[in-house]
């Protein structure tokens, strides 16, 4: 009796798990499809975050966190043990990358960074503009996190 009950109980549990898995799969498909549909209609935005780090050979560590809305960079945070003079200008570097479309053009994007560096007379030590773009590329290619 006891064994029969246990078998029935296990079978019910399996059915319940299988049902939940199917339901979750359906829910994911449904939300992905409708998110994209409504995002395209401009009803709401798809927000994603990318991040990556790189230790520059002979230089310093640079990490980047990129937020994007509908494949356009909406926020950037650059951290690491590099040097930048003057230090507060890190926000100028970060904001120069806002508005870049993903996937981005390496040369155009580095140009934006170099313009901020030249215009504000910034000095980066231990990391070059190309390294920042390279980490950004790595972050985007690894996909949203």
């Amino acid at each position, binding site marked *: 009796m006891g064994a029969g009950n246990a078998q029935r109980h296990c079978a019910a549990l399996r059915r319940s798990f299988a049902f939940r898995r199917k339901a979750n799969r359906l829910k994911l498909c449904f939300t992905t499809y409708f998110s994209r549909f409504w995002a395209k209609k401009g009803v709401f935005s798809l927000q994603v975050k990318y991040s990556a780090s790189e230790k520059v050979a002979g230089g310093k560590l640079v990490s980047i966190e990129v937020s994007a809305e509908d494949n356009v960079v909406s926020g950037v945070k650059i951290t*690491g043990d590099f*040097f930048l003079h003057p230090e507060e200008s890190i926000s100028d570097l970060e904001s120069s990358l806002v508005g870049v479309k993903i996937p981005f053009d390496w040369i155009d994007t580095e140009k934006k960074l170099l313009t901020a560096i030249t215009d504000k007379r910034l000095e980066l030590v231990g990391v070059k503009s190309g390294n920042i773009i390279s980490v950004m590329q790595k972050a985007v290619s690894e996909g949203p996190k």
Partner: protein
Amino acid sequence: MDGQWRVIALEENAAAKNMALDEAVSNAVASKASLPTIRFYGWNPSAVSIGYFQSLEKEVRLHECEMLGVDVVRRRTGGGAVYHDTRGEITYSVIAPAELFPKDIIESYRVICGWIIDAFALLGLKAEFKPINDIILEGKKVSGNAQTRRNGILLQHGTILYDLDVKKMFTVLNVGPEKIADKFIANVEERVTGITKNSGVSKDEVYQALVSAFTKDKKWSFGNYSQQEIVQAEDLAKTRYASHDWNFMR
């Protein structure tokens, strides 16, 4: 280096006060209210300082710091996270008009790091400058340095490791694999050293050697902080360097 220099003798302060004093002295030197200054100091309680661009939560094991009573502060210079043990290291700051040093940043690191290397030589130790901002002894890092330039003033501060508590250092610091990736060293404990691992000199002898080397060929005298510097440092310690907004800025 023809002008007169002020040397502030070895003192101990809490982390926020140490960073606030650097800034208050920089302001006073910028306004010519104070002479170019060399400070020697320790951290009491022991502390972790992180670079301006670092993420506090990523670099520091905050829970362990709290458990061990280790202070945490963000510097206004770039560079990496450093564990400042009260007994195990001496920190210095050089605060002077930038025109006294090479315009090239690496070259100016080389000049001031050269003074530290001279101090090691006085102790019979052969250390080397490793650009960008390190000094190595027997192939391992023994001193890390960081620099900023504002309002025409160069501020360089750095640590000289005396007696290394490697276990505590890596208990309070988070060292990710990227940081050591290009150095082919799997064990982070093999990257750093302290003077006691290479010599039997006392901490006081190290301090005396640092004073001799830093003041060589300079007109100098020991001095104290001005009242203006003390008042401003106390304010900056409270409003900036001990504040959550500053320390968790990134």
